[in-house]
């Protein structure tokens, strides 16, 4: 099992031509002790203490780029709430190379369960060369090791990928550090907010804007490859769903409709997209085949049917409808048949998003003047509320289905001050809520799949 996971990871490393290049060496390792595995599906757990030594240069001493990599790895792991990083000031004689066996008597007293060591330097061609090893300090065995070469600009991605390996080894689950967030950056007065699409790494670094702010833009969503973004664009004051190619910046209006299209989401294979079309006071859900741009109408009610989201296998769609009188959540087959209501709690339910694991659905709930982010089982049972505020909205899943991001908006004063919006993350256990730092106000986050 572990071997399979490693093989998959090797594949990811080797296909990453822009960040990682050339060598990809990973070694088969003995299965990791099951007793050390975290069960991250249960409530609050004691985080695993881990030591991340500064990666060393050719001289065996910490290199600048090596320190940077170690910092990113430690920050990623700590941000998950599942690890604590042991202060590097306490380290005694860290190994000068990842190929050397650590002196475990230096690490056991620090309480470290895991030890990450590595080397990182820029070679004569200007390429970044990185190797790493992860040690189980308790069993004194090497859990995994690997390495590769990359352009220098890829340094943070390499560190995120190493953090992903560590996370996956300790949790037995897929990780999410080598991912991006696309969101709406907000600035200006409350009555006329300037909104721009922006993209950044999941930790807030490598931030850049994707649109100029000339046109109002809302609700960006990644394609399954993260190469494209579907979003609502008010170009020429005609709100419609557009596709944006992230690499080239090229945009394309999706189809031509008599009414307004909005609320786009990609299907799991990337060939289909579902969205809402509002016309003559009714809003229905349509599916578009992106290869042919052919359209299928999935709902036919006089009500508002919006915010559709596919199940990970693409067979079902969860959506928001007021057909029963107020906003509730419904599930239907992806051909539009067999519609069933699933939300029956008190209040209004909105913005359902299917977990990438398939087992639960995240939503926004409005109840007695407060907004909540919550999750429920696919049949509507087991509702749990994870975050609360004056306005919280738009949950989006980490690719492993363990973490949600969403945004919070503060109330606005009558003089127009306030109304700040920020992105937050929370574990699906409801613990470890943290704000994601952005250059200005931020809303409508969408989490990418693991980058390829």
């Amino acid at each position, binding site marked *: 099992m572990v071997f399979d996971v490693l093989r998959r990871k090797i594949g990811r490393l080797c296909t990453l031509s822009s960040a990682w290049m050339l060598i990809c060496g990973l070694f088969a390792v003995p299965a990791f002790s099951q007793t050390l595995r975290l069960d991250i599906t249960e409530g609050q757990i004691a985080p695993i203490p881990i030591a991340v030594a500064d990666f060393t240069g050719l001289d065996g001493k910490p290199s600048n780029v090596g320190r940077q990599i170690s910092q990113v790895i430690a920050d990623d792991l700590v941000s998950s709430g599942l690890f604590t990083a042991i202060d590097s000031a306490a380290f005694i004689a860290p190994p000068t190379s990842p190929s050397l066996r650590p002196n475990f008597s230096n690490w056991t007293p620090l309480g470290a369960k895991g030890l990450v060591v590595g080397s990182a330097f820029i070679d004569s061609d200007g390429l970044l060369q990185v190797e790493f090893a992860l040690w189980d300090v308790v069993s004194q065995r090497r859990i995994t090791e690997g390495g590769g070469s990359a352009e220098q600009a890829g340094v943070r991605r390499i560190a995120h990928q190493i953090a992903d390996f560590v996370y996956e080894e300790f949790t037995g689950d897929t990780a999410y550090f080598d991912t991006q967030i696309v969101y709406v950056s907000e600035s200006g*007065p*409350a*009555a*006329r*907010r300037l*909104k721009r699409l922006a993209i950044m790494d999941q930790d807030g670094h490598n931030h850049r804007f994707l649109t100029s702010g000339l046109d*109002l833009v*809302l*609700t960006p969503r990644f394609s399954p490859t993260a190469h494209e973004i579907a979003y*609502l664009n008010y170009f020429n*004051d*005609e*709100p419609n769903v557009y596709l944006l190619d992230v690499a080239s910046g090229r945009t394309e209006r999706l189809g031509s409709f008599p*009414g*307004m299209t*909005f*609320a786009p989401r990609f299907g799991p294979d990337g060939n289909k997209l579902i969205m*809402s079309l*509002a*016309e*003559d*006071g*009714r*809003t229905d859900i349509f599916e578009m085949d992106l290869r042919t741009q052919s359209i299928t109408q999935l709902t036919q009610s006089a009500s*508002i049917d*919006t*915010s559709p989201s596919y199940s990970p296998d693409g067979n079902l769609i969860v959506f*928001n409808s*007021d057909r029963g009188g*107020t*906003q509730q959540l419904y599930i239907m087959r992806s051909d539009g048949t067999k519609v069933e209501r699933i939300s029956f709690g008190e209040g209004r339910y*909105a*913005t359902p998003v299917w977990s990438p694991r398939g087992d639960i659905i995240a939503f*926004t709930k*409005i109840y007695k*003047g407060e907004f909540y982010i919550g999750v429920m089982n696919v049949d509507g049972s087991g509702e749990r509320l994870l975050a609360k505020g*004056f*306005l919280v*909205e*738009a949950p989006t899943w980490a690719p492993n289905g363990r973490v949600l991001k969403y945004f919070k*908006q503060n*109330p*606005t*004063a*009558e*003089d*127009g001050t*306030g*109304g700040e919006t920020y992105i937050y993350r929370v574990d699906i256990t409801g613990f470890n809520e943290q704000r994601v730092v952005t250059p200005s106000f931020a809303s*409508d986050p969408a989490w990418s799949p693991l980058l390829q």
Partner: protein
Amino acid sequence: MIKRLFTLLTATAFLAACETASTTTGDATSSAQSSSTNTATTASSSSSASSASSSSSGESGKASVKSEFAKVGTTVLFDFDSAKLTDYAQRVLDRQAAFMKARPETRVTIGGHADERGTREYNLALGERRASSARDYLVAKGVNAARIRIISYGKERPASVGSTEAAWRLNRRAQTVLN
């Protein structure tokens, strides 16, 4: 001139708020006060928008048509999560219909809006429903549908800022703008 007419609009919208707002004494007073301040903000922003468009078009007549239209009443308000036209809203739309029929060259865009107490996508749909509701009424009163364009802004373009009941009430609206 424009400024004075917009003051008139402010008063109209203020009355509109009063007419259907709750009549309990203490609350009504405070909400009326805040709606009047809030509406003043709306008025000044629309006045700058209309003067900008009139100066760019260079037609001196256009500004006065806009002023006339403002007097008719450009905005109808809705109850929470509703696109049903109140009696007051119908009277405003009756005047809009009469105005448009008397000036066959005019075309309008109706913007549908929602307050901030809903989710973004649902509110986009709700805004479309409100704009459609106002459009359908004008068409039923004899205005050619081809002269009316609708657009939903959801909660993106509040007329009144502030997280208060009064502001939310003013933001649940369909706003008719002369093209």
